[in-house]
């Protein structure tokens, strides 16, 4: 069964909790895309004109470094969002995003979505709230990783062992 972009957008966690009419607004700026393993979704430094709602597969968020393989900062799976810089134009993408395997995603035109958010402030506010929630989750996860929790605890925690 072929499903519409609007149906797929409505199912994505980004829109959970948003007013029911949000899906058509987002879907009006969206298209379906597929990526082969290794293909770039986003490239650091380029204009943040499209972000992605991942439907299937895994995306690696990477930093390229001269003379060595890219460093993988994080992997993002189904139900997640790839690309945040578009929220604050004219920021370019801060990292590369690469398909770790076959990836199916909903590509959203950021200029189109921003225009709708500005035209319909209620929609824009609800969308920003939802995106902020996801950003907060990502920030908290990053902070936990900064703690380096799995490092050897040494003797400091429970006496010399």
């Amino acid at each position: 069964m072929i499903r519409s972009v609007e149906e797929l957008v409505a199912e994505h966690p980004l829109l959970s909790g948003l007013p029911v009419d949000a899906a058509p607004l987002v879907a009006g700026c969206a298209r379906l895309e597929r990526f082969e393993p290794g293909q770039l979704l986003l490239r650091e430094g380029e204009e943040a004109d499209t972000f992605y709602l991942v439907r299937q597969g895994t995306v690696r968020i990477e930093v390229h470094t001269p003379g060595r393989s890219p460093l993988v900062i994080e992997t993002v799976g189904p139900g997640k969002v790839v690309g945040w810089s578009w929220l604050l134009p004219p920021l370019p993408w801060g990292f590369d995003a690469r398909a770790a395997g076959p990836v199916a995603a909903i590509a959203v035109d950021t200029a189109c979505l921003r225009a709708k958010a500005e035209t319909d402030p209620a929609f824009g506010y609800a969308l920003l709230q939802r995106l902020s929630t996801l950003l907060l989750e990502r920030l908290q996860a990053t902070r936990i990783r900064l703690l380096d929790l799995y490092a050897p605890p040494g003797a400091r925690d429970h006496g010399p062992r």
Partner: protein
Amino acid sequence: MGLAEPGVSTTPRHPLTPFPYQVVGRRPETADVVTLSLEPMGGTAGAFVPGQFNMLSAFAVGEAAISISSGPGRGPLQHTVRDVGPVTHALCETEPGGVVGVRGPFGNGWGIGTPTGDDGQGADVVVVAGGIGLAPLRGAIVHLVQGARGAGRVVVLVGARSPDQILFAADLEDWREAGAHVAVSVDLATEPWAGPVGVVTSLLADAPFDASRAVALVCGPEVMMRFAARALLERGLAPERMRLALERNMQCGVGSCGHCQLGPWLLCRDGPIVTWASGAATLLGERER
């Protein structure tokens, strides 16, 4: 060890007196973690259940509480030790043929593989482990994937600092082949790692389990456990079905010395496994004064 073996006596002994055990195997797991396989030399410590710990002594150095990482009644007693201090360093350096002291087992267990049966029989079991926290869970997972418990799904989610810090890599593959959902995430990806990168809780999103009935077993750094518990609660898991392993300064093992007190518990006796509902939520959120 495990269940007492035929021909090996279980000599009644004062709980503070160790039994000598011979190291019959030493397997490096990572650069600073070693699994020791031990066989009794005459008398044997008691039968254990997954989640319990023994006090291991490196003679002339000292004693440390180390979780049992093998399954009950299967092969030699195994302990997986991380080299973090003088005692654990001496234990990690003990070669086959060497002798260590063992007294125990102490504490309660995960409630998996107990002689009296499990609660939540047939329900899905979600195991969330961080770093060395996988060691105390290994015996329970072995029991679960062998289908000894019931028809529920087994989900094993593991977080590690980097790929070279992943414990029991061969076991993880065995558990996957046995039908468990096994996922591993690292904080720092190094070549040729192609798996997930991020906190272990990010693995919960794709984990297939029925949260309305599932039992969770969580072990790792306490901050990780707090966040894992929060994520499991958001997924719908009941607090009374969430079991966590807490660790403090275990010394006597029998609830006498008080070094391992945490709130109302002496963890060597009342723990190390406690449920989120029983007070772990409060105690893990308690701030030092």
